[in-house]
């Protein structure tokens, strides 16, 4: 591990992103468009937008970074740059943290724009602060990046990598309490949702929505999310093999 190599890798990934302005535009514009859309779908029920909007602020970065990381990592594998990097003094963790840091920064920009729009123009209100919501959004982005990095090992093509999104993310969205309260689902589904990371990511946002100060439950949720990030990164590191057949 070397901070120099980690940071230089972060800079390299951000440079790649900079050469791709359309992806940056999509990252920033798509969440704001969807939030605006929701605001007016629930035009007659502002409370519903308030309930769902804050959760969406946390879900967008997870989904976006999951997709971007799984495709970026797949490219590293298929173009041989990963093999090349692993023959250099770079440590696997340099690469993982480099990605984590780069996409956390990208997610911070995305979250700032989306939250700014939601609070100022779309009249989203929460008991807790917008800054806490933005921090949770960044944690979710890093979680999405870590999970995306891990699952990219099981994709052989970009087609497959993209399909992992609905496979890994949609069930979590359905079960996390966004669509329907978890207590009212079939008992076995609630048990499954208890072990899915997004359940805790969403619960933390619900806590911020209804409490002015961070609650113990929110901290527990954050701890679970951070734990999941660490586990996903370790699993991801295990898929970066120096020696392959």
């Amino acid at each position, binding site marked *: 591990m070397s901070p*120099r*190599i980690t940071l*230089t*890798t972060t*800079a*390299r990934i951000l*440079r*790649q992103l900079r*050469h*791709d302005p359309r992806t940056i535009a999509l990252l920033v514009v798509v969440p704001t468009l969807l939030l605006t859309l929701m605001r007016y779908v629930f035009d007659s029920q502002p409370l519903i937008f308030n309930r769902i909007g804050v959760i969406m602020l946390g879900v967008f970065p997870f989904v976006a970074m999951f997709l971007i990381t799984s495709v970026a990592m797949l490219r590293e594998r298929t*173009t*041989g*740059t990963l*093999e*090349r*990097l*692993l*023959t*250099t*003094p*770079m440590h696997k963790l340099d690469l993982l943290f480099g990605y984590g840091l780069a996409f956390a920064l990208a997610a911070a920009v995305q979250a700032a724009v989306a939250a700014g729009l939601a609070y100022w123009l779309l009249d989203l209100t929460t008991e807790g602060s917008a800054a806490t919501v933005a921090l949770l959004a960044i944690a979710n982005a890093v979680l999405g990046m870590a999970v995306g990095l891990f699952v990219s090992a099981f994709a052989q093509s970009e087609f497959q990598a993209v399909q992992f999104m609905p496979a890994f993310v949609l069930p979590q969205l359905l079960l996390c309490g966004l669509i329907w309260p978890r207590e009212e689902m079939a008992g076995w589904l609630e048990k499954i949702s208890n072990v899915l990371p997004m359940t805790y990511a969403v619960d933390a946002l619900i806590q911020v929505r209804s409490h002015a100060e961070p609650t113990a439950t929110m901290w527990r949720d954050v701890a679970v999310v951070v734990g999941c990030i660490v586990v996903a990164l370790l699993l991801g590191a295990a898929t970066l093999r*120096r*020696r*392959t*057949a």
Partner: protein
Amino acid sequence: MDAAIEVSDLVVVRGKRRVLHNLTTSVRRGTVTGLLGPSGSGKTTLMRCVVGVQKIESGTVTVLGLPAGSPPLRRRVGYLTQAPSVYADLTVRENARYFAAIYGIGAAQADQAIVDVGLAQEKDQLVRTLSGGQHARASLACALLSKPEVLILDEPTVGQDPVLRNDLWQQFHALARAGTTLLVSSHVMDEAGRCERLILLRDGRILADDTPTAVRAAGGTDDLDEAFLRLVLDQEKAVA
């Protein structure tokens, strides 16, 4: 003998197929050794073993006295993969400077490597907009810039025009004179004549491991292409 690379009884199995059969050879320090053979003969696999990214069934590969792929070697061994492995969405210079930074090398040395492979004019171009030959040279620059003691180059001159090929080979020899050990694969026989030693591979076995002069003598002809063909036929006769 002062060997930079020592391969002993190396066996590699991929799937159910034996790709390398009990290979034993060595590469002397400060020389350019050519690794030749038809495609599918095991050249890339042998090079991957030397770099330490290939799973090995049995046998040993030692580089600079250390097991291939061990951490201290990652600074001392440079590897050019056959397919160019640089970032298509970065410029040539951004690629070179990134790989330089990994080795803790300054930007000046990275820029020099770009000049050395003849891409000075294209340095600010995105790699994906380069021609195939330029793309390959961008990748080569990233392998050369850290000035490693051992350079493993998998088909470094493929797709390059004759003038550039000549220039690159002169650079390889200059590096060897300065003490670098180079193992260079090719399937072009006219490049074989430029090497101090040749390892001819066929179907994962060593057909010849000698100087170009000795290979010509063994094949009974001055034409290396022809000599290689005769050695293959001799071997088939021996098996039959």
